[in-house]
C-alpha cells in the first residue's frame, strides 16, 4: 500500500530523515519506535505532506501512485489519515460540523454528492458509540477545552468516520491514562481490516500491548536501524534505546 524508498527530508535547512525504506501492505500494522528527535514525527508529517518539510531524495508511493506532487488535502482524499500528536483547536466549529465538512470535501474530490443528512447522522451515531462518545461531546467546539484523552478519542473518531486506507497514529498514547488508552486502542482495533493499514508511532511499548503490530521498526538518526516483530518492542522496553544507538 505504502512504499517508501530512500526517503530524505529536511525542515528549515536541517536534515532529519536520512534514507528511510518502509513497505506497508494492506492489512498490516507497523509500529515505529525510537528515541526523542529520531525523526518519528517528521516521517508522519512528510507522509501527510506538511509544507514545512522538504523531501530532497527518495520516493513515496501510495498504491503505486507518487505522493510527492500532491497537496495535503489530495493525499487525504487518496486515503491517508494522520492522527495528530497535538490536535489543534478550532473555536466555534463543532466536532459534528467539522467531520461533515471533511467527509463532504473528500466526496466532492471523488465526484460524489454530499452525504445525505440522515446517512451522515447514522454514521456519526454508529462511530461515536463505538468509541463511547456521547452526543454532547459532538456539539462542542473542535478540541477546545478537551482533555488529552478527549482530543485523542476525537482523532480516532475522525479516523472511524473517514475510513482511510492508511492511518498514521502519531504518539496517540501520549497524554492518555490507562483507561483512555484502552478505549482508543479498542477503537483502533475495531477499525482494523484486511483492506487498510496502520502505522503506529510511539515511544513506549505500552500502546503496542493493546494495538499489536505485525512489524516493529526502530528509527534512529533519521534511519530505520532495526526491524522485527512485536518482540522487538518488548526488548526495547527492557533494554532502552542505548544499545540501538551503539549499533547505529
Amino acid at each position, binding site marked *: 500500500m505504502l512504499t517508501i524508498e530512500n526517503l530524505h527530508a529536511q525542515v528549515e535547512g536541517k536534515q532529519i530523515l536520512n534514507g528511510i525504506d518502509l513497505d506497508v501492505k494492506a492489512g498490516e500494522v507497523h509500529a515505529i519506535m525510537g528515541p526523542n528527535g529520531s525523526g518519528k514525527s517528521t516521517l508522519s508529517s512528510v507522509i*501527510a*505532506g*506538511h*509544507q514545512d518539510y522538504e523531501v530532497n531524495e527518495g520516493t513515496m508511493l501510495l498504491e503505486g501512485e507518487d505522493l510527492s506532487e500532491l*497537496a*495535503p*488535502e489530495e493525499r*487525504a*482524499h487518496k486515503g491517508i*489519515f*494522520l492522527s*495528530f500528536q497535538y*490536535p*489543534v*483547536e*478550532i*473555536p*466555534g*466549529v463543532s466536532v459534528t460540523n*467539522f467531520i461533515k*465538512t*471533511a*467527509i463532504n*470535501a*473528500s466526496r466532492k*474530490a471523488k465526484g460524489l454528492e454530499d452525504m445525505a443528512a440522515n446517512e451522515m447522522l447514522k454514521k456519526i451515531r454508529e462511530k461515536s458509540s463505538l468509541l463511547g462518545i456521547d452526543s454532547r461531546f459532538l456539539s462542542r*467546539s*473542535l478540541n477546545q477545552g478537551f482533555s488529552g484523552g478527549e482530543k485523542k478519542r476525537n482523532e480516532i473518531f*475522525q479516523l472511524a468516520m*473517514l475510513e482511510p486506507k492508511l492511518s498514521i497514529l502519531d504518539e496517540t498514547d501520549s497524554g492518555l491514562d490507562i483507561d483512555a488508552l484502552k478505549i482508543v486502542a479498542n477503537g483502533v482495533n475495531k477499525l482494523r481490516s484486511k483492506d487498510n493499514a496502520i502505522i503506529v508511532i510511539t515511544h513506549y511499548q505500552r500502546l503496542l500491548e493493546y494495538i499489536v503490530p505485525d512489524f516493529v521498526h526502530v528509527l534512529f538518526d533519521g534511519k530505520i536501524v532495526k526491524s522485527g516483530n512485536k518482540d522487538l518492542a518488548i526488548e526495547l522496553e527492557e533494554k532502552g534505546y542505548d544499545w540501538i544507538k551503539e549499533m547505529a
Partner: protein
Amino acid sequence: METGSAVTWKYPSCILKGDNSIGEFYSIALTNNYQQADTGTKMIHLGKNTKSTIISKGISAGKSQNSYRGLVQVHPRATNARNFSQCDSLLMGNQCGAHTFPYIEVKNKTAQIEHEATTSKIGEDQIFYCNQRGIDPEKAIALVVNGFSKEVLNKLPMEFAVEAQKLLEISLEGSVG
C-alpha cells in the same frame, strides 16, 4: 455585517432613553486587501435599569486595517445601567492589523460595565489540520472564520445567516497565501 468599501466609518448606535430599555449590537466586520474599516457602536444609557450588549467580530486579511471603536456612555440619571462588550479580532497573515478602541464614560456609580477583547490569528497549524482531513485551504479558512463569527451569525435569522456565511467566503476568496 460589514465587508464594504475601501474606507468605512460606521457606528450604528442606540440611545437607551426609556427606563428598562435594552440595546444590542452584533456585528461582523471583514476587511481584505487594502481596506480600512473603523466601525462600532455607541450605547447611550439615559434611562434607569437600561442594558446593552455589544458583540463585535473583526476579521482582517490581506493588508487591511480593521478597528473597533465603541462608546458606552452612562448618564448621571441612568441608575443600574449595565453593559457587556466583547470585541474579538481574527488576523490572517502578517500584514494586516486589528485595533480595539473602547470608550467608556460613566457618570453614575451604580453602573456595571464589562469589556472583553481578544485577538487571535488563523494558524498554519489549523489550516494544515483541515487539509489533512481533506479540506482545501480556502474552505479551511472559511471554516475557521465561520467558527469565529458563530456567536453573531447565530443571532441572525436563518436565511440571512446563510447569506452572510456565503458573503464571508466570497470576501475572503484569494486571501490564501
